[in-house]
């Protein structure tokens, strides 16, 4: 739907050739080229392919044998020398006519050993030098821009002398250059820009690493994401796809008449989920505030206010451990639609995920971590109870309120093959609803590889969902699982303020009992680690204002939340959440 313009530099009013740095470079070049043949940097003729395979010529790799500090000093000296010669090594702007990939496409039919140097073949490109081979009067550079790579063919005879010498003495791998020239395909078939003019736009001070793939310090990839991105263009592709996915979601929601709104991150009460919140302090208000753990309660207030279809794509914060699936801040979409129920949400979930898959992969059949997954509609729909029964053979609905009998049956199923922790979880379950959910998480979740809507959860674990219209004890809720992971969570929303209050109260009670039990348990066992965990207990608050809002009347409404990060992981075949978040939270170095 968005009109795609070739690229920005072509937009009217964007061209400004007169400020090209090169003019100054040419004008000032007379006595400015540093004579550096005796200086250490003259040795910096390196294997141009280091970044691609690590093969290198013998004795030609100063960068990898010198310390980083030495190289930095050498390059800083080049900066000084360039300035002394009248060249600014940190340029101001560059008027680009083409991206590398655009040239690759445009000249795809240019035969080998042929030049294209008519007026229309004059191009200007810019990017980072990622490989460099310099001979006496010839140099080959590989330049990478936003779109991809292209070779720069520098022949002394075709350039002014000064720029060519400058290139030899002052240009390093990692530097940004702006280049003007014509097109040529080399004898070996490599499409190249025949360089007429070249100028250094940014001098880099630190050499790019020789190898980045398979780096032992995986964390370094996340800590210095930009190096990861320079060395491995696929990394940026994930972020581009991430942008496509959110953009597709937005476009679809807007086409359905949903309005995107923003609700606060800083809140007096962290509601809408049961998770440990981050706490901060507002100085001027002299008030502790929480970072939101969900957008739910504020979005629902807007449905009360008459916005019948609203959504928010935004950051959520949970003060929990980090893992391949958890980052303390993550992005979700929550959406609410008046006069809809959870069946409508299932249809919408299918539609949204399908559209995103098509936008990114062009297909609803995807491969995730070597597993084939079909996102073809419709997806399997099954109740939580039936899925648990399928695996355990136990119908937990048959126990009524007899929690002890249910626990006995569960323990019987596991026949003692349980970790201590899991046994504890089962024995501590305060209700059959909690127990069913625990068993579901232990034995069913991981089996749900193909997209599956798990429906009709116990009311005890769903404080914001509406009671099921026909099944007592259950609610109208679903969670979407793909590859054993929860991707979405949705309900027919609870709209009854009286019941909502009772549910919140029960939630607070259960939460406090669980926290107290954990503390008690740690004390009895004398386990300091557990005790300190128990000390981290947090409170679940009651959002009175939200209940008041419900008292003004909320129409029948369905709502859904989708974890954007996990969706991006699935559609980009990324194993870790850190691969889809540009700057994930990391431990102290």
């Amino acid at each position, binding site marked *: 739907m968005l009109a795609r*313009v070739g690229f*920005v530099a072509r937009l009217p009013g*964007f061209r400004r050739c007169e400020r090209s740095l090169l003019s100054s470079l040419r004008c000032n070049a007379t006595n400015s080229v540093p004579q550096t043949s005796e200086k250490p940097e003259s040795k910096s003729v390196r294997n141009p392919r280091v970044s691609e395979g690590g093969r290198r010529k013998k004795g030609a790799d100063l960068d990898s044998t010198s310390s980083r500090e030495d190289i930095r000093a050498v390059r800083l000296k080049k*900066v000084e020398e360039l300035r002394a010669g009248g060249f600014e090594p*940190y340029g*101001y*702007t*560059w008027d680009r006519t083409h991206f590398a990939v655009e040239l690759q496409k445009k000249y795809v039919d240019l035969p080998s050993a042929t030049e294209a140097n008519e007026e229309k073949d004059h191009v200007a490109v810019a990017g*980072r030098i990622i490989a460099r081979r310099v001979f006496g009067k010839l140099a080959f550079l590989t330049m990478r821009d*936003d779109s991809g790579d292209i070779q720069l063919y520098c022949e002394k005879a075709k350039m002014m002398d000064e720029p060519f010498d400058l290139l030899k003495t002052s240009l390093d791998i*990692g530097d*940004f250059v702006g280049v003007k020239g014509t097109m040529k395909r080399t004898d070996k078939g490599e499409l190249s820009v025949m360089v007429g003019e070249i100028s250094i*736009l*940014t001098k*880099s001070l630190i050499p790019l690493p020789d190898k980045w793939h398979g780096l032992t310090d995986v964390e370094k990839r996340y800590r210095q*994401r*930009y190096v990861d*991105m*320079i060395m491995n*263009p696929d990394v*940026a592709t994930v*972020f581009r796809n991430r942008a496509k996915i959110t953009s597709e979601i*937005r476009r679809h929601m807007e086409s359905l*008449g949903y309005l*995107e*709104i*923003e609700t*606060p*991150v*800083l809140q*007096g009460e962290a509601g809408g989920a049961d998770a440990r919140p981050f706490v*901060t*302090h507002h*100085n001027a208000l002299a*008030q502790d505030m929480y970072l939101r753990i969900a957008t739910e309660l504020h979005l629902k*207030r807007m449905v009360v*206010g*008459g916005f*019948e279809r609203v959504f928010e794509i935004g950051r959520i*914060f949970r003060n929990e451990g980090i893992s391949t699936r958890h980052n*303390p*801040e993550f992005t979700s979409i929550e959406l609410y639609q008046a*006069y*809809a129920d959870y069946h409508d949400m299932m249809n919408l979930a299918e539609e949204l995920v399908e559209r995103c898959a098509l936008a990114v992969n062009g297909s609803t059949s995807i491969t995730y971590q070597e597993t084939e997954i079909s996102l073809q509609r419709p997806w399997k729909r099954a109740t939580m109870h039936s899925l648990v029964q399928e695996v355990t053979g136990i119908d937990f609905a048959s126990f009524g309120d007899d929690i002890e009998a249910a626990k006995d049956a569960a323990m019987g199923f596991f026949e003692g093959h349980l970790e201590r922790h899991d046994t504890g979880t089962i024995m501590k379950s305060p209700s059959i609803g909690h127990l069913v959910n625990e068993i579901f998480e232990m034995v069913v979740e991981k089996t749900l590889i193909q997209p599956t809507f798990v429906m009709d959860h116990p009311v005890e674990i769903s404080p914001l969902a*509406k009671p099921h*219209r026909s099944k007592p004890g259950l609610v109208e809720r679903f969670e979407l699982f793909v590859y054993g992971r929860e991707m979405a969570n949705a309900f027919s929303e609870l*709209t*009854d303020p*009286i019941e909502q209050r009772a549910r919140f109260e029960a939630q607070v009670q259960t939460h406090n009992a669980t926290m107290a039990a954990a503390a008690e348990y740690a004390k009895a066992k004398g386990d300091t680690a557990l005790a300190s965990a128990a000390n981290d207990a947090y409170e679940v608050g009651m959002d*009175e*204002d939200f209940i*008041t*809002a419900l008292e*003004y*009347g*909320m*129409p*029948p409404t369905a709502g859904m939340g989708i974890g954007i990060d996990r969706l991006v992981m699935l559609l980009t075949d990324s194993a870790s959440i850190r691969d889809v978040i540009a*700057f994930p*939270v990391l431990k102290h170095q």
Partner: protein
Amino acid sequence: MEGGGAAPVAMEGGEPMSKSALKKLEKAKKAAEEKRAKEEKKKAEAAAAPKKAKAAQHAEDDEDMDPTQYRSNRLRALGELKEKSRNPYPHKFQTSISIPEYVVKFGEIQDGEHLEGQDQSVAGRVMSKRASGGKLMFYDLHADGVKIQVIAQSNYSDLSEEEFSRMHASIKRGDIVGINGFPGKSKKGELSIFVKSIELLSYCLHMLPKTHARGGKDQAEKSLDKKLSEVTIASEDSKVPEHWHPGLARNLERYPLKDQETRYRQRYLDLMLNSDIRNVFKTRSQVIRYVRRFLDEREFIEVETPMMNMIAGGAAAKPFKTHHNDLNMDLFMRIAPELYLKELIVGGMDRVYEIGKQFRNEGIDLTHNPEFTTCEFYWAYADYQDLMKVTEEMLSGMVKEITGSYKILYHSNGLDQPPIEIDFTPPFKRIDMIKGLEEYSEGKIKLPADLELLDSPEVNKYLVETCEKFDVKCPPPQTTTRLLDKLVGHFVEEQCVNPTFITHHPQLMSPLAKWHRSIPGLTERFELFMNKHEVCNAYTELNDPVVQRERFADQVKDREKGDDEAMAIDEGFCTALEYGLPPTAGWGMGIDRLTMLLTDSQNIKEVLLFPAMKPHEDVIEPPVRAADDLAS
């Protein structure tokens, strides 16, 4: 109109609307309101008269009831339903058409025409209820900011007469109902739905404040509207817009719910009762959508960078601090995404942007909220000149698209003064900061010709004296940066009513901007001011890591002098620069402040759905006072 904030606004025929004329209008309006209130009361009394049917009595009695009593009555009714195992909160009501669609589809039918057989299902909130005998009920049904009339006649209903009146007695103002019926117009021409069946979907347990202002406008109000609208769209002066539209002035005085605390703390009531509000937030959404589309069309990639960091960099402000338990690590909420976005440019993404929240641990006032929304974009190989062109293009295009004109109305001088016009016609005016300071102080401020000397103790001393001379307050620490900022605020920013670029800030004020390519001591930077407030800040990015380190070191010096808003050094960012940042232009804009202008909002709280408020101890009381005030 530039700088003419205090001048009277020219009216049609060149006649200015004086203060006294406005007052007169106000007075007339007030009188009319009182008169209407009286009539309303009379009507209520009449309604309570014994000759009226029972159902009607119910409807009107409620209005006089004590609010606590009202709520407990409704709770009792709910309890009774639940006891009878009837679900008072149905799971689903299938609508066949939305109310706005209904209005479009059936708006043109003839007065008195009924489309029996073309049944529709609609749902919405009952915002008024009127009875005419026991067999005929009228409701106003609101949804999506639009209303239609509901006509319930016992002869169209399947219900017996008794059931019919019981059903309608149970429906109160504020309830959500679902209706099945056929479209038609009353003889008076009001678009309606004739009820075949009606279902209560959700209860409003509280009495809603009345919404008199929704009813017919009296003459004084109409003429005020007309005058205001003439100022905006001279060509459409015959058409008085019934609803507020972005770019027009708002009249908060006309809102049925006026109490600010209630409006901001219970935004849903504000949205239900004050019809403009919905449009204000739609405008906000439109602003963001426009920016997104504008950048997407130019192939910028939207990215997300962390909101929690080890260091809060990229701007000068007090951050919020929090703690990650599991990692046992203090984290700061971001004050700007700038440094991360530039790291992505280093990584090879040539055009990136982020629209998102920033957090500053500062006081709350008319233009500051602890969390606010910005857009920042970074564009490799461009510079600040490119950014000025793009800024003009984006903002003028946006204002034109959203408001229909380049010119908007804004109450710049308080609600009791006429609104001023702000003109977004490109190109925008440009004022060089230092030259502007000298010029607008009428030459009374003279800075050294060599601007690299701005950093000297002599200049600092001179600026301290200058501030004193012109009575420009600059609380300590009196760093040169802060003194200059205050003086510019006093002399230059005051000139910027229409969008105006203030350009070429001194280096010491701009630690992340690149030095000017030809004027030593200055940077390639601009800020865009509108209505004297900064809305955009942009520059050619400083990409020399050595100079960047020096600038950070200067900031640290200012910090040591006590300016705790000076920037902290970010080593990680400097390292990223050492890997090479291409020539890049970067740009930031405050979404909230721009939205304030387009929605004639003087308080940032008007454009935030849930603004930060002082903590309040008591549970929210239903705003019955507002109802009482209106009724008396």
